[in-house]
């Protein structure tokens, strides 16, 4: 499956990702330093204190020197600096931990997206033009029209307010980190994944309908295979090929959507940190979070491209 060529390709991509990440963080670094206003403007400092802090954050040097020091620290030590607001908090371990949380939520959402999307799509296709098809198709239009934070709010209302005595609020409160546990991520992952599940369902339905009329499916049925085997093993496999072409935008969409969902559910991931640090003007964290996102997007895109190789043997790199 992974030939030597593939491995070389992966190597090239990883180098490319590293450069992209550096480029993104540089753009954000230089862009942010052009903003009006003082980095330490929230604090009422005077005289020595102020100068000391500027020196502490390396902000008393010319911009290009600051930038050089920043790049050197990132490349050699992976050091993204220190929070401007919470003094002494190192950014690299902070954003790495948050990245883990975000990946956990996003991965779970992806399971919903692909699982529900395929299930809905296949069922709608094999029950074409029945009420099942109509209900699922209508659900999917509603699904991609309702913003994820609206869906999330409804879920919170239902499970954390109206059914609070039943659920004991346990669906809602997320403790965070890897220890947060999958059990608490059901609702955010569903709210994050469902809109994209609608898109997957539409695509799966359309390509299933095309595949299921083909001769080899008739052959499979004529051989006397059970319908479930025909659908699951013969039809679905080929029906999935158009579907995987949207995996890339899908993963990007889930990463983007997670910013909103994390803020809605109070999940301590990258997205929450991002919105918070922008509001706090904690510029170094903004840079750090953006760097993590650039890496995440690069790696996710690479993973998607490699999935193509696994699902469709005709694709080679």
């Amino acid at each position, binding site marked *: 499956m992974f030939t030597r060529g593939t491995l070389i390709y992966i190597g090239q991509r990883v180098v490319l990702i590293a450069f992209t990440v550096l480029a993104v963080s540089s753009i*954000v670094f230089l*862009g*942010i330093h*052009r*903003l009006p206003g003082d980095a330490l403007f929230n604090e009422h400092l005077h005289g020595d204190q102020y100068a000391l802090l500027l020196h502490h954050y390396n902000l008393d040097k010319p911009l290009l020197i600051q930038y050089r020091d920043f790049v050197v620290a990132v490349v050699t030590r992976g050091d993204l600096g220190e929070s401007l607001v919470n003094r002494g908090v190192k950014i690299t371990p902070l954003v790495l931990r948050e990245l883990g949380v975000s990946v956990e939520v996003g991965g779970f959402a992806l399971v919903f997206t692909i699982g529900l999307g395929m299930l809905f799509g296949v069922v709608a296709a094999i029950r074409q033009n029945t009420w099942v098809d109509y209900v699922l198709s209508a659900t999917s*239009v*509603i699904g*991609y*029209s*309702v*913003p994820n*934070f*609206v869906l999330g*709010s*409804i879920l*919170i*209302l239902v499970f*954390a*307010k109206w059914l609070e005595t039943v659920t004991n609020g346990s669906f809602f409160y997320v403790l965070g980190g890897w220890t947060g546990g999958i059990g608490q991520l059901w609702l955010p992952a569903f709210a994050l994944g469902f809109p994209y599940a609608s898109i997957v369902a539409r695509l799966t339905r*359309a390509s299933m309908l095309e595949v299921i009329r083909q001769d080899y499916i008739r052959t499979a049925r004529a051989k006397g295979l059970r319908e479930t085997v025909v659908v699951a093993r013969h039809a679905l496999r080929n029906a999935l090929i158009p579907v995987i072409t949207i995996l*890339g*935008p899908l993963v*990007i969409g889930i*990463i*983007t*959507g997670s*910013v*909103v969902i994390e*803020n*809605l559910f109070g999940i301590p991931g990258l997205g929450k940190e*991002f*919105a918070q640090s*922008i*509001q706090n003007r904690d510029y170094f964290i*903004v840079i750090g979070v*953006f760097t993590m*996102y650039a890496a995440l*997007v690069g790696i996710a*895109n690479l993973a998607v491209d490699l999935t193509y190789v696994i699902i469709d043997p005709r694709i080679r790199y």
Partner: protein
Amino acid sequence: MATAAVARIAEVSAPVQASLWSDAWRRLRRNRLALMASIYLVLLVGVAILAIFYTPYRMSATGLAPDYAGPSLAHWLGVDNLGRDQLSRIMIGSQISLIVGVGTQILVLAVGVPIGLLAGYYRGWLDSVVTFIINVFYGIPDLLVALILVFLLGPSLANIIIAIVVTRWMDMARLVRGQTLALREREFVEAGRASGAKPIKMLFGHIMPNALGPIIVQATFGVPSAILFEAFLSFLGAGVQAPTPSWGSMAKDGVDAIQFAPHMVIAPSIALSLTLMAFNFLGDGLRDALDPRSRR
């Protein structure tokens, strides 16, 4: 007598001239969902225009009722965390959503159509460069870039529109490029070129009108995605600035009070969802009407 009868027969049997557009209009009217969506959108535009002249209360007037008070006769949709009338704010919010949705699509058309036409018509290095840029833009998370842009430019309605256009112009450019690539091989383009039409006349006078159907469909789908985008930005606190309400920022205020004042999140959520759904149904209807072959 005989001539009159012949004339009448000729009149009856003459094929009724049915252009693409009248055909499409007929098909669109028959699509019940699209029709309902259009009616809703006309009403929405009416509300947005009405809100220029009249809202039940001033949208920024605080303390009209006890904070967080639920729906009542005086305040049909209740009041928010500062005692502001929700209905008035939803009405103003409809203006913001429509301006963002339509405004971005006008700019996206202005940017995406020429780029797509040029890339598709001239091909070569120009096309390679454009395709590369489009792919780069598809690879970046649009919301994050837009957030940073709004943050750098400063949050205002104009900057939000700019940020959305910068991150979402590619859909249109890619579509127009594809259409142009297909159309440029057709005979009428060759005929036009042979008769000495200038390139600008070829692009905008001959090729673009023939791609107008898909362009309209794409622009229609672009409106709800821009509205959704603005709602996301506002929800994250990078939207239009207080006290001007947007449905996204109202939903955000509502989420903060979700445990004791659910009406605050429900009202803007319903407005937003209905509007997005209406545009999507209208887009589906237009696609079926303008391009019957692509019917699902």
